[in-house]
């Protein structure tokens, strides 16, 4: 009884007043979404994938799109690290720290999603033990596993700087902080592993001779790789700018981020050209299944996603907003443009995943006349995906608030002065 009463007073005096602050409300909201997601995930684990709307015709749906997007948007980690440490752009080193944290969150989202998506989650480790080196998906499994370890090593110094760790376990904090010495090497390893698996994810689709719209190994691999880099850099810049507007705990170097946004602007323009080229290289003459898939993409069910989200909102508009100095100088516009780039990359992954599956080729009476199928995610799929995304947002919020992952005022030298709390270092840009 006393325990309950004590808990009640604790809630009344501490938790309820705290909830008046928007940040705690936001975190509580995310935690609720996560709780629902965990419940839904339990249903999936207990009842099996029969609770999804996936079928033998569309076996890859919302979850695959979420983890493809999460991996793509996590690509800022390797690309910004590579620019900062391999191209020796020192001013980007603190941004790389943010990027590595965001990347870590992105990859953990993808791994949770994948664990749900495979039919036998108890055998998730099979990819590491039973090798089929011809399979792009095996390559992705290995590289994602290894790269996640790299990201963990890169995130360790950030965790070491977390106040409770620093205060209670100063020696551990120092140990973890000293891992920062490895960063340039990890940046190199990360660049290699990411290049391999980001392009292999495109090849996963591009290798399939059974689906003519996907069967373009090189274009698929290259556009997955490049769009991941652009989306990842945009997301890191976006998160930094938004956090800096919301909380004084995030300290950014506006000059650096402006340069980064300008780079993203050019990159997205390049991506647009590439995507257009890819589209234009498709056949004008009728080709079974490919023509139908192109129809779905450009005029059918995915047309809004393709023209609206991918091309106009995801590439044309952000390119204009980021390259025309007049627009870019308005911070709100810059933030909007960067968010749109990320949205465009997500839309690209969703469209690509679905477009090959919606045309059922050769499973049809008469055989060679393609037939269309449909897919709408079930409520359980949506709830689990939302839960996992809520985890990602919560992790980023936590990182910004408690781990100082966005502190671009401090120029980190390698090796870092590990035990100096980042917040003490004066920021010259505020």
């Amino acid at each position, binding site marked *: 009884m006393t325990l309950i009463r004590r808990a009640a007073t604790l809630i009344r005096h501490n938790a309820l007043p705290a909830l008046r602050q928007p940040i705690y409300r936001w975190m509580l909201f995310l935690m609720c979404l996560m709780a629902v997601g965990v419940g839904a995930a339990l249903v999936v684990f207990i009842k*099996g*994938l*029969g609770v999804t709307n*996936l079928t*033998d*015709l569309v*076996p*890859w749906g919302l979850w695959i799109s979420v983890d493809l997007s999460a991996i793509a948007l996590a690509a800022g980690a390797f690309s910004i690290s590579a620019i900062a440490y391999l191209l020796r752009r020192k001013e980007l080193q603190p941004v790389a720290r943010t990027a590595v944290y965001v990347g870590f969150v992105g990859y953990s989202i993808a791994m949770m999603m994948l664990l749900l*998506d*495979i*039919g*036998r989650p108890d*055998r*998730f480790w*099979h*990819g590491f033990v*039973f*090798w*089929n080196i*011809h*399979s*792009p*998906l*095996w390559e*992705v*499994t290995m590289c994602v596993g290894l790269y996640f370890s790299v990201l963990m090593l890169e995130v360790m110094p950030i965790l070491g700087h977390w106040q409770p760790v620093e205060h209670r376990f100063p020696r551990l904090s120092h140990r973890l902080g000293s891992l920062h010495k490895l960063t340039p090497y990890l940046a190199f390893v990360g660049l290699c592993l990411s290049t391999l698996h980001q392009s292999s994810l495109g090849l*996963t689709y591009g*290798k*399939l*001779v*059974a*689906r003519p719209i996907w069967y373009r190994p090189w274009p698929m691999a290259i556009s997955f790789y490049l769009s991941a880099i652009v989306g990842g850099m945009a997301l890191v810049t976006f998160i930094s700018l938004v956090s800096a507007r919301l909380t004084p705990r995030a300290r950014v170097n506006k000059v650096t981020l402006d340069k980064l946004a300008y780079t993203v602007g050019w990159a997205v323009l390049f991506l647009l050209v590439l995507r257009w080229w890819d589209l234009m290289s498709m056949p004008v003459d009728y080709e079974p299944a490919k023509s139908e898939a192109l129809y779905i993409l450009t005029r059918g069910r995915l047309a809004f996603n393709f023209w609206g989200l991918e091309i106009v909102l995801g590439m044309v508009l952000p390119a204009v907003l980021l390259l025309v100095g007049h627009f870019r100088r308005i911070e709100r516009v810059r933030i909007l443009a960067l968010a749109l780039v990320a949205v465009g990359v997500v839309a690209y992954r969703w469209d690509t995943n679905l477009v*090959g*599956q919606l045309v*059922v*080729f*050769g*499973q*049809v*009476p*008469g*055989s060679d006349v393609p037939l269309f199928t449909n897919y709408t995610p079930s409520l359980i799929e949506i709830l689990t995906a939302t839960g996992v995304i809520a985890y990602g947002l919560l992790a980023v919020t936590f990182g910004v608030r408690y781990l100082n992952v966005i502190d671009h005022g401090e120029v980190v030298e390698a090796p870092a002065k590990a035990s100096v709390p980042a917040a003490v270092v004066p920021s010259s840009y505020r």
Partner: protein
Amino acid sequence: MSSIDRRDFLKLGLAATATAAVGIGMSRIPLPMTATSAEPEPDTIIPADEPAVIARGDHDQPSPHHWVMVIDQSKCVGCDLCLAACHAYNDTPPNISWSRVEEVEPTAEGRRVFRPTPCMHCEDAPCVEICPVGATYHRYDGLVMMDYERCIGCRYCQLSCPYGVRHFNWEAFTGPNPDVPAAGHPEVPRRPRGVVEKCSFCVQRIDRGLAIGLTPGFDPDATPACVVACTYGARLFGDLNDPDSPVSIALRQRPDAYRLKEELGTGPRVYYLPAEPALEESAS
């Protein structure tokens, strides 16, 4: 009287006959036509609770056999008896059929044409190439096998298969199988929830038959269940390396035989004899 009534009557009659045939087959009473061949000894028959042959075999030694299935579309009436036999012998759930029978374009005279589609056991199989854990693989004799103990259920093979013959176990299949006759029992263990399954060309029957000196394609006990069950003789099976096997003879006689989506270069092991006699004439 239209011809459809007569066909329906024939279909029903033959379905009943063949169901009886499947039942007899599963009860292991030797049929008159197997009497000439060596009779299987009871102890050589693999009990159902033992796992089917999933030994990966030795790739260094080329197999003397080249198993092939030939499907004569002029004989297939779309009665689904092959599927009934397949369900019974391989214990597939009611919502999964390892092969499917589709109605395709009718002939010029308007006769209905059907096309059964089992796993093609491609020589250059996309699924074998892309399975991330190697759970689907080529056996020593080139048949495409599934290792249900290794499959993680990622369903990538379903995307890769140009013929759509791979099926995922979305739900657990429990309880008695309504497709198994009371007198018999399936020959292979049931697959768990969360793995992909597909037609195996009844390797358990081929292997068991070979072990006791039978010839797959000739002896029903060594031949895939669907081939045995087809009362129309629309499905043939055998060794293409043996010039006297039913498949070699059929493919020699019918140069117009075709395979599905040959242009993809997958090298399917299932050949079709078209129903259209016009094609036959033009080809010869």
